[in-house]
């Protein structure tokens, strides 16, 4: 049996603590930080055990958190993939050290990624434009705040964001107002109504899948369909660690653990509302990532390069 003194509870506690301490942190980053902690504090005898421990930790975070798991899954998978990449024939202690170094370097780059996206996307926010965004996304928020700091004036419509319990849209609105940005909170059902008056839609994503489509807060797909029909550009802002190896073709293809995370998992889902939906690439105009501005078809290229 692998000797690890991190049991799942500890891992999950650490993970949740990270998230609650730092509002701004994305769950993917928190997952990677947690994995780094596991890597640092555990003892391993073989690479195999190390890998298993990591995967177990990812599993634990997925199962126990109340958050949507898409970012945890992609961040975790990317991290596991990356630290074990071409280690070579070295003693296990050295391997662990190399992995730890790599992990920290990786994390450092990821922390910069939001800044990168902000810089790219900011140019699309023109003076006097009207933007629709769905629910709350940290990277969208940061981009808008940054644009406002550079003296751009624009109006943001924010949807309430599906689930009534977390008031994410309201929170987004308050934060935007605090930064001096004009905004209007609208009902999710008013998306069609406001679409004619906005210039474009800008949303975040929980995960970007291989086809170039996104998994995001429920209601994103509705917004995308409306935008497409009214010929408004639909922009997605997403860090590249959210690229996931999934290829859903429709909503049913998304596994239940994505749609019903946390407390809902394992229950009879026929009466529960899903928390995310899948937006196919045909509805997305551009994706802003730390790798540059990508068209949806460029995403699969990136993933193929990585998992070749």
């Amino acid at each position, binding site marked *: 049996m692998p000797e690890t003194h991190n049991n799942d509870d500890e891992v999950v506690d650490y993970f949740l603590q990270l998230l609650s301490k730092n509002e701004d942190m994305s769950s993917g980053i928190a997952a990677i930080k947690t994995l780094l902690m596991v890597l640092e504090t555990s003892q391993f005898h073989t690479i195999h055990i190390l890998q298993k421990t990591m995967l177990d930790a990812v599993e634990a975070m997925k199962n126990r958190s109340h958050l949507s798991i898409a970012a945890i899954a992609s961040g975790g998978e990317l991290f596991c993939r990356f630290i074990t990449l071409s280690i070579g024939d070295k003693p296990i202690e050295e391997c662990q050290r190399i992995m730890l170094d790599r992990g920290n370097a990786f994390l450092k780059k990821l922390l910069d990624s939001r800044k990168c996206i902000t810089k790219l996307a900011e140019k699309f926010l023109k003076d006097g434009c009207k933007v629709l965004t769905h629910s709350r996304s940290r990277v969208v928020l940061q981009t808008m705040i940054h644009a406002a700091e550079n003296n751009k004036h624009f109006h943001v419509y924010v949807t309430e964001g599906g689930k009534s319990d977390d008031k994410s849209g309201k929170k987004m609105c308050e934060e935007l107002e605090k930064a001096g940005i004009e905004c209007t909170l609208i009902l999710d059902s008013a998306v069609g109504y406001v679409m004619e008056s906005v210039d474009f839609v800008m949303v975040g994503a929980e995960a970007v899948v291989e086809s170039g489509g996104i998994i995001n807060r429920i209601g994103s797909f509705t917004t995308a369909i409306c935008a497409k029909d009214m010929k408004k*550009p639909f922009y997605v802002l997403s860090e590249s660690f959210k690229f996931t190896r999934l290829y859903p073709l429709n909503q049913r293809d998304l596994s239940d653990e994505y749609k019903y995370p946390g407390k809902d998992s394992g229950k009879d889902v026929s009466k529960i509302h899903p928390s995310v939906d899948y937006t196919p690439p045909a509805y997305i105009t551009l994706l802003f990532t730390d790798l540059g501005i990508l068209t949806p078809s460029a995403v699969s290229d990136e993933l193929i390069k990585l998992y070749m």
Partner: protein
Amino acid sequence: MTTAKPIAEIASLIHSIKIGLEGSYSISSRTLELFKKIIANKSWKNAQELMQLVQEQGRILSSALPQEVVTSNMVRRILKIIREAFDLLREKNKEYQFDDGHTTLSLHKLITQTSETSKDVDYSKHHDGLRDVLLDHLQEIEIELETSSENISAQAEEHIHSSEVILTLGHSKSVENFLKRAIEKRKFLTIIIAECAPECRGHDLAASLASASCEIVIIPDSSIFAMMSRVNKVIIGTHSVLANGGLRAACGSYTVAAAAKHFSVPTIVLAPMYKLSPVHLCSYEQDAFNILGSAEGVLPYDSLAAKSAKVYSPIFDYVPPEFVTLFISNMGGHAPSYVYRLLSELYHPEDIEM
């Protein structure tokens, strides 16, 4: 922002474009010529100095001629060549293991590359022979430029068949050569040319294509939709191709493309590689994108209506990528969704923002 002064050659290029040097090919070959001279004759000690010089002059060019994106494209191309030549020399001197993914940002690199990112490359090191290598590479680009039109028109046979009806708009040099080749090889072609008022360059194209073996029809721009139902293919040129695969093309192209879409007629765009530009259209507002030409052709200045009416004559149209079926470049045919890939091969990500 820039304090650098334009060197004399750059200033004279800007001047000659402003007073009427036309055609993307001549502008880009002039630009290349000029930078070749700079690289060969100016004194620079290392790649960094040279890159700085090229960047400064490139910035001057692009701010003086914001509509002529081919000049900026050429500058980006040259910068990439300097980077590559430098890396190659470094590799030769065994200082650094050259890896293939070096020049592009990728997720793979993001996670495998831990110490040396491309930003850390020190270009200030001196290398013997850099100048010669660079001039060799520039020679290659020059040849590519010279042959690009020929390479495009060589593909005419693949796309145009006998007894087809082709519609085009205005007067593009690439389209002219392409159609000439098609007329040589195919019989019973009908070529419909929308005249592209108010400059009516379509007339010039008609005059140059006129031959006994094909039928040329000139139509006013207003009848594009009416004619489209009998057209087999639309073939147009473009001023430049944007990063998402959209076009900035002569005014009227959107009309043609939209009509073609309506009748499911394939729209083929001839665009040599030097027209691919890594910029995105940030907003659909025209003032950031379009320029206005002389309105005299629309409404004479001394006409009665000119007293009471505003007259505009925009030069460009933005055509979204979904209206384009195929791009034909000197490298072959590409779908609009593939443009990003060509761009990542053509330019270095750090040079996109000049």
